[in-house]
């Protein structure tokens, strides 16, 4: 069993939640194969930065309303 399959088989969850986690693991596995640790970090940095930037933007906008 490959590393990808081995981890996939251990991921917990139901329905969409499980599918989402398996898909995310797939992205991590591919990123690691391509560029190692840094690439894995990059996947989440980009994703989380997009969320936090959007969040900060909305927070600024809503604070101005007050």
């Amino acid at each position, binding site marked *: 069993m490959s590393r990808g399959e081995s981890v996939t088989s251990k991921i917990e*969850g139901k329905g969409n*939640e499980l599918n*989402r986690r398996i898909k995310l693991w797939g992205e991590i596995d591919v990123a690691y194969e391509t560029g190692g640790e840094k690439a894995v970090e990059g996947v*989440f940095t980009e994703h*989380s930065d997009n969320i936090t930037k959007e969040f900060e933007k909305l927070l600024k906008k809503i*604070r101005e309303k007050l």
Partner: protein
Amino acid sequence: MIELKTLRIKGFRAYTEEKEFIFDNHVVLLFGENHRGKSSTLNAIEWCLFGNECIGKDTGIRERIEWEIPNRNMRPYEALVEVNLKDKTTEGKITVARKWVSARKDELSVTLPDGKSLRGNEAKEKLTQVLGLSFRDFLTTVYQHQEAIRDVLVQEPKERNEAIDRLLGLSNYRNIIRGIESAKLGIKQRKMVDEFDNFVSSIDTILRSRENDLRDKRKKAVEKGLKETQLDEKGALEIAGKVKGQLHKFSSEVGLTLADLQVPAQRIDLHEFQKTTGGEIKRFRSEMPDVRKQQDLFEERTKTTALKEQYEQKESDWKTAKNKFEAMKKETSKLKVEVEEIENKISEKEKELRTADAKGAVITEAIDYLRLEGVDKNICPVCETEKPGLFEHLEKEWTEKYEKALGVIESQLDTFKKRKDEINIWFGEYKRAKRDYEDAYKGIEQIKKRIGGALGQGISIEDDLGVILSNELKEVNKRLEELGKAVKYKQATLDQIVSELEKINLIMDILDLEEKKRIVEQIQQSSEYQQMEDLKDEMAILVDDIEKIKEAIREASYKESEQKVTAAGNVIDNYFHRIANNPSIRKIEFSVKVDSRTGFNSYMFKDQGGKDLTPILSQGDLNAMALSIFLGMGCSRGTNQTFGFVMLDDPSQSLGSEHKENLIRILNEVSCERMVILSSMDKELQNLSLSKMTRAKTKYVFYDWTTKQGPEVKKE
């Protein structure tokens, strides 16, 4: 599995001139004394495959700190290493070449079996994929470095467990988790939650502040005379209409024109109305006719007061000059008589002086004559005959009669002249006083003319200007007082209108605050708030998913490690017994469990009695244990190695003869699975490897090293 085929080195560390090595047998031996270039040869393979990753503190190898890549005797610096690899599965040949550019930069190229050449990041990514092994894994499972192997047994449990994971080929799991954790998602999520919570709590604070402000404003509105029913848009608009009516009435009463003032129909226009109305009130305050008159009277009063002061000053000057002049005039009459008398006396005295002078002159000339002729001869200057006692007689006459008399007359004359001079000075002062008096009089005349002009009436010499001006000032003040009352009344009317405007302001402030309060109350229903909640949830789900994936990775890592430990445990035990041959250790129990704190694999080495082995091992045992783990994990069938070769650099440092022979026997077994590249300066180990290893061997002898040539190597 990747096999090593050839190695070409130029300018790397101990190397200067280009050298090539061919790895054409299962056993490749690098023999030679210390400092002949053996280690540089193994390092060259490592650097070619991993570049700057094998330099610096992070490698865990002390000598790698400030490691020099190019040979310091070469000019210019030029370091190039080329490695030819073969993928045993596909039989494809891959060439990896790395050229040193600077301490922080090198150029990597990877040539694939189809001849395609990759460079830069593309080459790096491909090489990572081909090797399937991180530098750390390479260092602990392919390249036996004494220091790195010993870490397994002597370092802190955390580092030891990580090192064993690497030996088991499980470091990818740790690497992936490390990569995930480097993104610091948990911290970012907590920051988002904190910011969101702070924002929510700030809503309450702002709402309370708005309510307080609103309460204050309403209180003020009631104090201003507004009713609760007026505190709305309609109320404000009605007051605006009232204000316009009041202003219109006021403007008619005072005779001013009111600007075209539109009573607003809606709240939005109230601000403009207030601005225009405020401007009109300001204008009325300054342009009211009574205010103008007031200003004129103020000017008149200032002017009259100034004239009065000037007049009083002139009058005072005139009186002073007049008194002085009249006083001097009386004295002058007396002095004129005195002058005449003095002049007569001077005349008389001058006459006396002349008479006395004439006689005196005769006597003094006679005395001079006698002195000339001879005093003792006593010859008369008139008759030229001798007159006995003549000289003494003349001197007596001069001394007793004329010399004294002349002095008295001269003194009297001097006194008279001085007095005359004094009187003449007085006459000069009298003339000045007269002129001052005349000028002061002219000044009075002039100021009277000016005052007459200012008052618009003729002023005669008999008029008492002080009284006239005082009366005039009283009249001005009386008129000012009357006007002041009228202006005060009108300003009070305008103040009332301003007060009405302030009521509008208050109502508008209340309406604004109500609007702001409504926004705060409804902020949680806004789309932005909803989106923020969604993003917060999205981040929470991501973090939760990641935690679940990390758990899955750890579990997969544990399962795999459990399998491998089971598989390699016996091999390590076997290798250790065979190398160390320590009679006190009958069995090594190698096991793994999950560390409840970190969630990572935790490894244990215990003896047959279940006790930790590390405290009782000798230096030779440690060396044997390190080699056992390296060979057991790196070379056993249970592990998942991508490299078809292992490199051992001086592995016999602390081993005895028996240990060495045992090690060679094991390496002989390993060479059946993977190429063994053995570097050693140990003659005993060299001889053992040549006599005991049964596979075909390639031997490189490093027999010399020079600054210019680098290692002198011959293949045997």
